[in-house]
C-alpha cells in the first residue's frame, strides 16, 4: 500500500500572509499593558488641544522651554512618590523634604561657600535623611506610612522654618557666583534646560529599575501583595526602607535643582506640593494603585495637571476658581479612567474572540463508513490502565512495547510491557504534555502546551529545547512564545517539525479557537544542531497532528477545524502546503504511520450539519459568546470520535468507531505496534488496544523511523 505522494499534483492550500481584522486589532491593543495609560494620555491630549484652542502661543518654543525648566522639580517628586506608592506606602513629607533640601543646598552654597558637587551631595544627603527616617519608622519598625510621613512632614517643615528664619535673608543677599551652579540652573543642552535632562535621566532609570532590576521587581511585589512577597522570600521591610531612601534621594535632587534655578527660597516653598504630586500620581495611575511602577503614566498625569494648572493661571483666572476647576476636571478624568479600567477586561473579553465565516469541504469518501453505517469495531478493544491515567493525548511505544503518554498533571508516564499493568512516572515536566516522538537517540521529544518543545531521556532528565520562535511581521501581540505546542515528528536530518496549534488561546480555552475559525496556528521547526527555532508556515487553521511520510520527503499536518490534512514538501518548505485530504467526517488530531505504508488519522470529534452551518455565521457565534454562558456554547461534537485509515495517496480505506456510549470516544492519537493499534484520548482515563487483523506483527514505529536497533 505504500506509495509516494505526488506532491505537485495536489491542490494548493491558500495560507493568508496576515490576518487583518479591526476587532482583532482592538482586542490586541486592549490586551497590551500600555493601554492602561490610555485615559491619562487622552486627558493630556484634551488639555493640550484645549490650551491650543484658547491660548495663543502657549506652545511656542520659548514657553515650552520655560515649562520644561520649571516643571522639573515637580516631575522628580512625582517619581519619588511613585516609588513609595509602588511599594505600598505613601509619603506626605515630600513637600517639606523638598523645601529642606532646597534650604540645605542654598545654605551650603551661599553660607558655607562649598563647591557645587559637595552642595549636590549635601542636598541628596538631606533628602536621604528624611527618607531614612521614614524608612526606619514606616518600613523597619512597621509603623503606618501615613502617620510616619505626617510626622516627618511636620518635623521637617519645622526645621526648614527654623533654618529659613535664620538664614534666608543672608542667602538672598549672598553675592556668590559659580559657573557650574548657573549652568545647572539656567543653561540649556540641545535647546532644553539641564534640569529637564536630569528629569529624563531619572525617569529612565526608574523605568529600567521597575522593568529590569531585581530591586524594582521587589518593590512591585511588596506593593502588590506584601504577604505573598514575604512568602516569596523577599525582604519586605528592607525593600520598603530602601524605597523611602531612594525617594528621599530623588527629592533631594529636586531640591538641589530648584535651589540652583531660584537661588532663593520662601517660607511657602514646598507647601502643598505633596497634594499636587499626589493628584498627578492618581491621575496618572487611575487611582491610588500600589504595586504598579508606571513611570510614563505618572509623568503623563503630572503633565496633565501641571499644564492645566499653568494654563488656567496664565488665563488670568482667580486662584480659587483655578482650584475649583482643577478639582472638577481631575475628578472627571479619574471617573472616566476608573470606569475604563473596570470595564477594560470586559471590553477585551467581548472583542478578543473574533469569529470569521469558515467552511470546511463537504464530507467525502465516507460512504458506508460512517458510525451509523458500520459495526463499532473499537468495541473489541481492550482497555489499558483504566482509571489510572488523566488525558493521554498521545501514546508512544518503544521497540519493547512499553507505552509512554502524557498526563494532565504534567507528568510523562510509562506503562511497562508486556502486560501493561504497571504505570510509572518517567518524568515530571509540567505544563500539559501532548504530542510525543522518539529521536534518533531514543529520547522522547514532547510537545508541551504552555511550555514548548521538551526532550526527556529514559533516565527522566528533562530539557527544554525551545519555547519561542520568530515574531510575526504583522502582529500587535507579541507571538514569539509558543503557546500550544501540539504534535511533532522528526525528519531524517534530525530537524523536529512541530505545531503551535493556536497563538491566541491557552490549552484550557482551545475550544474558543474553533469558535473563532481563524488561521491562528503555525508549523514550526527546531534544529537541534543549531538550536534554532523557525516558523515554517504561519496562519494555519489549528494545525495539530504531524507525521513524516514513509519516504521521509513530506510532512503531513492535520488541520483540525478545516477537517483536512495538509502536505509539506521538506525539500521546498517555502512552497507552502498542499491539500492531501479534505472533507473528513470529523476533526483530525494526530496522524501516524501504519505498517502497510498508509496512515492512521485520529478523529477527536465529529462534524455535524448544524455546527458546519454555525461556522458559516460568524456574527451568530460572536453574539452567542456574548449572550450565552460558555458552558452552553454550541460546539463540535467531541463525545464521539474514531480512527480513519488512509492509504499513502490520501484515500480513506477504513474507519474504526466505538459504540456511541463506548469508552473510546474522543480519540486524539493512535499508534500501530506489533499488529495492534493503541488509542489515546485527551479527555479519557484509559488507553485502548485493538488487535489488527492482517497487520504486520513485526512492524514498530521506532524501527519505521530509525531502523531496527
Amino acid at each position: 500500500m505504500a506509495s509516494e505522494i505526488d506532491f505537485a499534483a495536489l491542490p494548493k492550500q491558500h495560507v493568508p500572509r496576515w490576518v487583518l481584522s479591526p476587532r482583532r486589532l482592538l482586542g490586541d491593543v486592549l490586551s497590551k499593558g500600555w493601554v492602561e495609560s490610555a485615559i491619562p494620555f487622552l486627558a493630556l491630549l484634551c488639555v493640550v488641544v484645549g490650551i491650543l484652542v484658547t491660548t495663543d502661543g502657549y506652545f511656542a518654543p520659548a514657553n515650552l522651554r520655560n515649562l520644561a525648566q520649571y516643571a522639573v522639580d515637580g516631575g522628580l517628586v512625582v517619581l519619588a512618590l511613585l516609588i513609595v506608592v509602588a511599594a505600598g506606602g505613601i509619603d506626605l513629607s515630600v513637600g517639606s523634604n523638598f523645601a529642606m533640601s532646597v534650604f540645605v543646598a542654598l545654605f551650603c552654597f551661599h553660607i558655607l561657600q562649598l563647591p557645587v558637587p559637595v552642595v549636590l551631595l549635601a542636598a541628596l544627603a538631606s533628602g536621604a535623611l528624611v527618607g531614612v527616617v521614614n524608612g526606619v519608622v514606616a518600613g523597619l519598625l512597621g509603623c503606618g506610612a501615613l502617620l510616619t510621613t505626617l510626622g516627618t512632614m511636620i518635623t521637617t517643615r519645622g526645621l526648614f522654618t527654623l533654618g529659613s528664619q535664620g538664614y534666608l535673608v543672608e542667602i538672598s543677599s549672598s553675592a556668590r557666583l559659580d559657573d557650574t551652579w548657573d549652568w545647572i540652573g539656567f543653561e540649556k543642552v540641545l535647546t532644553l534646560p539641564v534640569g529637564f535632562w536630569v528629569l529624563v535621566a531619572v525617569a529612565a532609570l526608574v523605568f529600567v529599575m521597575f522593568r529590569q532590576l531585581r530591586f524594582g521587581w521587589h518593590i512591585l511585589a511588596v506593593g502588590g501583595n506584601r504577604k505573598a512577597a514575604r512568602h516569596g522570600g523577599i525582604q519586605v521591610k528592607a525593600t520598603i526602607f530602601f524605597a523611602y531612601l531612594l525617594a528621599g534621594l530623588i527629592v533631594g535632587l529636586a531640591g538641589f535643582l530648584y535651589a540652583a534655578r531660584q537661588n532663593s527660597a520662601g517660607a511657602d516653598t514646598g507647601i502643598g506640593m505633596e497634594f499636587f504630586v499626589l493628584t498627578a500620581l492618581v491621575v496618572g495611575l487611575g487611582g491610588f494603585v500600589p504595586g504598579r511602577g508606571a513611570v510614563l503614566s505618572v509623568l503623563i498625569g503630572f503633565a496633565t495637571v501641571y499644564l492645566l494648572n499653568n494654563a488656567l493661571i496664565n488665563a488670568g483666572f482667580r486662584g480659587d476658581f483655578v482650584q475649583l476647576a482643577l478639582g472638577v476636571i481631575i475628578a472627571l478624568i479619574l471617573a472616566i479612567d476608573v470606569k475604563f479600567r473596570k470595564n477594560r477586561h470586559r471590553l477585551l473579553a467581548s472583542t478578543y474572540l473574533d469569529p470569521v465565516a469558515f467552511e470546511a469541504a463537504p464530507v467525502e469518501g465516507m460512504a458506508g463508513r460512517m458510525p451509523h453505517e458500520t459495526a463499532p469495531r473499537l468495541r473489541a478493544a481492550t482497555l489499558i490502565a483504566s482509571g489510572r491515567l488523566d488525558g493521554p493525548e498521545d501514546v508512544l511505544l518503544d521497540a519493547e512495547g512499553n507505552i509512554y503518554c502524557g498526563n494532565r498533571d504534567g507528568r510523562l508516564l510509562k506503562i511497562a510491557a508486556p502486560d501493561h499493568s504497571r504505570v510509572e512516572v518517567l518524568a515530571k515536566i509540567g505544563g500539559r504534555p501532548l504530542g510525543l516522538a522518539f529521536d534518533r537517540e531514543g529520547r522522547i521529544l514532547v510537545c508541551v502546551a504552555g511550555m514548548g518543545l521538551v526532550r526527556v531521556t529514559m533516565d527522566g532528565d528533562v530539557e527544554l529545547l525551545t519555547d519561542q520562535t520568530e515574531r510575526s511581521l504583522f502582529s500587535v501581540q507579541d507571538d514569539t512564545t509558543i503557546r500550544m505546542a501540539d504534535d511533532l515528528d522528526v525528519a531524517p536530518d534530525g530537524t523536529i517539525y512541530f505545531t503551535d496549534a493556536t497563538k491566541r488561546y491557552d490549552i484550557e480555552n482551545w475550544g474558543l479557537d474553533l469558535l473563532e475559525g481563524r488561521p491562528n496556528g503555525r508549523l514550526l521547526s527546531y534544529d537541534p544542531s543549531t538550536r534554532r527555532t523557525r516558523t515554517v508556515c504561519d496562519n494555519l487553521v489549528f494545525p495539530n497532528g504531524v507525521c513524516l511520510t514513509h519516504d521521509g520527503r513530506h510532512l503531513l499536518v492535520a488541520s483540525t477545524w478545516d477537517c483536512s490534512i495538509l502536505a509539506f514538501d521538506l525539500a521546498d518548505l517555502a512552497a507552502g502546503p498542499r491539500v492531501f485530504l479534505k472533507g473528513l467526517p470529523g476533526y483530525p488530531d494526530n496522524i501516524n504511520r501504519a505498517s502497510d505504508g498508509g496512515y492512521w488519522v485520529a478523529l477527536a470529534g465529529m462534524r455535524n450539519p448544524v455546527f458546519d452551518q454555525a461556522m458559516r455565521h460568524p456574527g451568530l457565534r460572536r453574539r452567542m459568546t456574548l449572550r450565552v454562558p460558555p458552558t452552553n456554547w454550541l460546539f463540535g461534537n467531541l463525545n464521539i470520535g474514531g480512527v480513519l485509515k488512509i492509504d499513502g495517496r490520501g484515500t480513506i480505506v477504513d474507519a474504526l468507531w466505538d459504540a456511541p456510549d463506548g469508552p473510546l470516544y474522543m480519540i486524539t492519537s493512535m499508534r500501530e505496534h506489533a499488529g495492534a493499534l493503541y488509542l489515546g484520548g485527551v479527555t479519557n482515563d484509559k488507553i485502548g488496544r485493538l488487535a489488527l487483523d492482517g497487520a504486520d506483527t513485526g512492524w514498530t514505529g521506532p524501527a519505521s523511523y530509525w531502523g531496527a536497533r
Partner: protein
Amino acid sequence: MFFRPRRKEAPAMTLEGVLGQNSRLDEADGMRVDTPDAVCVLPDGRLLFGSGARIFALDRWGAEPVLWASTERPVSALFASAGGRVGVGLEDGRLSVFSAAAGHLADWPAVTGLGAVSDGVFLAEDEIAVLDTGYGPGEPVLALAPWDDEARGRIVRVRPNGRQDVVRGGLHCPMGLCLDAGGGLVVSQLERASLVDANGKVLQAGYPGYLGRVRRSPTGFVMACLSRRDPLIEFLKTEPDFVAEMKAKIDPRHWIAPRATPEFSHDVPIELGASRLFGEVKPWAPSFSYGLVIELDDRLMPVASAHSRANGTRHAISDVATWNGALVAVSRASGELLRLDAGRAPS
C-alpha cells in the same frame, strides 16, 4: 458606560432553590413500559397508562399490569371523569371515550378532525375539553416547536352528539390541560414554558422547562417537563436567519432542539460544557434532554421539584399523576413509569 439599562421583565426561573437540581427521578422506583406517554387515575383507584397502542391498568405499585384496552394507533392522551369515563386520545388526532369497564361508549362516537390530541379533561360527564397541538401525526414536536412562530394549538370542546367548538385557538404547542380549584382551565404550553387559562391569558410564565402535562395535586398542581429550558436554544430563538437556514437545509433530526433521549450521536452538536470526561458526562453539564417534575402551589409557583440530570436516563417526563399519595411520572427516554414521594406534603 455610566448607566446600565434596567431589566424590563423578570428573568426565567433558574434551577435553584426549590427547583435546585437533585436526583429524585433517578432514585425513584421504576417500572419498565414500552413507549409510554400518558397516565391517569380512575375513580376506582386504579392507574391507567398508555404503552404504544395499548392501555394497561395497575391496581397498586408493583402489581402486574392488566391490559385494559387496545387502540389502533399509539395513545397520546389519557384522562378520566369522576363518573368513570376515560378519554383516550390517539396520535392521529382521534379521540375515543371509554367506560371504566373498557369498551367504547355507545353514546359517544369517536371524535375525528383534530390534528393531534395531547391532553383533555372532562368538563362534565357529557362534555370534554381536548387539546389539539396543531402538529400532525408523527411530527417531531420537540424539534419543531422551538422554531415555530405560528401558534396553531387550540382547545376544543367536544360533546357526545359530535359537536365540536373551539374554545380557544392561537395556543403555542399546548401539551397539558387540567382544571383549577374554581373549575377554570389551565393549559401548559411546551415551548412558551408557561401556563395559560382558557382565554390564553398567561397565568404564570418563566418555568425552567419545556412543559409537558399539568395535573391537579394535593399541593396545587404538578407539572411534567419534557426537557429543561436551554440557554442556547433560547438564544437561537433570537437568530431568525440562522434558524430559517437550519429549517430549510437540515433534517430535523440534526437540529438543535430539546431532545427526548440523552444518547450520544455523531450527527448532532453538543454544548461546550457537555463534553465527556473519562467517558462520563458530568451531572451538571448542559444537555438537550432532561428529566424534570415540578410541584406547584395554588398560585402556580414551584414548591418542589424532582430531577434526572444530564448524566441520568429518566428524561423527557411527559405526564405525571398523583396516585395513592405518591407521584407517578412517565419517562419517555427510559421507557418507565416512576414512582416517587411528593416533594412537599399538602398543607
